[in-house]
């Protein structure tokens, strides 16, 4: 079971949204991180056959992305989706089930089971119109799993979920990752930090990092600093180093910074976390 991307590229006119991305995915959870406009959605759309790559190929065990068998093994949650206005949650699930080719009886059973899994069983008969954003998102997650997909691609699945549902979702995903390929994109680093076996970092359409959490963090190990400085110093420090955290402590300011050298005398080196790396790559200071 192997999903292979070979130099996948997507151009929008002169804009390059994805630039020669090569990847091999095996069963497990993959977390895709990247700033707004990094090309996460574009990449995922190509992996789901929604967009055709300008160049490159995507195959699952030798099956091309445009084949029916590929789609049969696929579950996808788009970043944004709509629904027919007359649909209730259950109707929606049953409709998607007909498209996924699931027989009627099985579809009912499966739909109920999944709605329960995302704790929407009480709302099954309610119109989707009346749902809150997070409830709709959970419905989206449920529909993606109707056909027991071997490849599960979720575009910002945790957007709009409350903390309780977020924890539930995290547990669900780590369970699912045991025997299938799960790829999820997010802006919330803590969502993937502990469940993703592999972290992929995208920037400007390119894959700049790929590896286990520890490997990735190693690149900035020893370059994360914490210090407490007077207000007057804050601006000049923030101009030179990407600031990861900042809070007022009495008269002084607590700062967490990334930098190659010690930013100031009082600074102490601390253990790096994924969020530091993320902010380091996507902070404006670094972009300049």
């Amino acid at each position, binding site marked *: 079971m192997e999903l292979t991307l070979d130099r996948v590229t997507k151009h929008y006119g002169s804009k390059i949204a994805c630039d020669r991305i090569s990847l091999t995915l095996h069963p497990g959870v993959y977390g895709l991180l990247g700033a707004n406009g990094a090309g996460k959605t574009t990449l995922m759309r190509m992996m789901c*056959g929604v967009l055709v790559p300008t160049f490159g190929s995507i195959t699952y065990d030798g099956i091309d992305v445009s084949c029916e068998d590929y789609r049969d093994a696929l579950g996808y949650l788009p970043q944004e*989706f709509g629904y027919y206005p007359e649909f209730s949650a259950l109707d929606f699930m049953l409709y998607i089930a007909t498209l*996924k080719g699931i027989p009627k009886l099985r579809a009912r059973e499966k739909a109920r089971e999944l709605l329960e899994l995302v704790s929407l069983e009480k709302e099954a008969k309610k119109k989707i119109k009346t749902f809150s954003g997070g409830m709709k998102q959970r419905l989206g997650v449920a529909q993606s799993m109707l056909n*027991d997909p071997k490849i599960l691609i979720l575009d910002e699945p945790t957007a709009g979920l409350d903390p309780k549902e977020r924890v539930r979702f995290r547990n669900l995903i780590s369970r699912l990752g045991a025997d299938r390929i799960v790829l999820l994109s997010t802006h919330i680093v803590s969502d993937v930090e502990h469940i993703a076996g592999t972290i992929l970092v995208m920037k400007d359409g390119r894959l700049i990092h790929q590896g286990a959490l520890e490997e990735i963090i190693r690149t900035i190990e020893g370059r994360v600093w914490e210090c407490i400085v007077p207000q007057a110093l804050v601006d000049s420090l923030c101009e030179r180093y990407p600031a990861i955290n900042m809070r007022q402590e009495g008269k002084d300011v607590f700062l967490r910074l990334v930098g190659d050298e010690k930013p100031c005398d009082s600074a102490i080196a601390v253990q790096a976390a994924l969020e530091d790396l993320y902010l380091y790559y996507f902070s404006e200071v670094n972009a300049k």
Partner: protein
Amino acid sequence: MNKKLKNALQSAFEAPKPVDKERFLKSLRYPKTTCWDFFLSQFRYIRKRVWVLSVLIAFVGWAIAFLSPLTIDWYIEGEKIWIISAVLPFLALLTATEIYRSAFYRMTELEICCRFSLSQVIMARTAILGGGNFIVLALLLTFIGRVSPYSLLQAAIYLLVPYLITCGICLLILSRTRGSESLYGCAAAACLVSVANVIFSSTMQLLYSNPFLIYWLLVFAASSSLIGIQIHHLLKQTEDRTWNLLLTE
């Protein structure tokens, strides 16, 4: 005897509790539905209003053909046809917008990546709606054929032209624009065709005379091919997955 033994055994020993039954059942591969099952399942997802309007139109056709001489005596040649053909653009409007529903409600992305992909969904919808409309039109023709002074072919053309023009224009608008403005465009087109049909046919009886038949035929051919081109274009768009208009906001 055998049965007795079986029962005795069953009562003597307790059956072992199934181990991991749930998981086994889940992992069982179930037979997938066929294309035909899929096609049939799509009937449920055509909006009711399409069928209601179809039945209504068929009924109006029947009423005009068989009841009007009794109730109305301002009976002019051709009148029956234009009354019905003025209603048909609205059937065309409903049909065309129904085909494009996925895009209106932003379901395209979800539908593309399912086993039966968007192009199959659109084909199924087009086939179902086309079949439904065909039945309505065939019924109308038989009703009209019974009472109209024209030949069947002539009646068919007079009846179909407004319908086809609306269908063609709506599909054209829907393929070029998106969102609610295209819906307004289509509604406007349907009204326009309907009103034009009423005005022309009530003021210019000449239009329904034989010398004009050739123009009717030309319009008929033109609008039919417009519809053909639009449907082809739509399916090609879904198959090449070039969703420049339907996907991205």
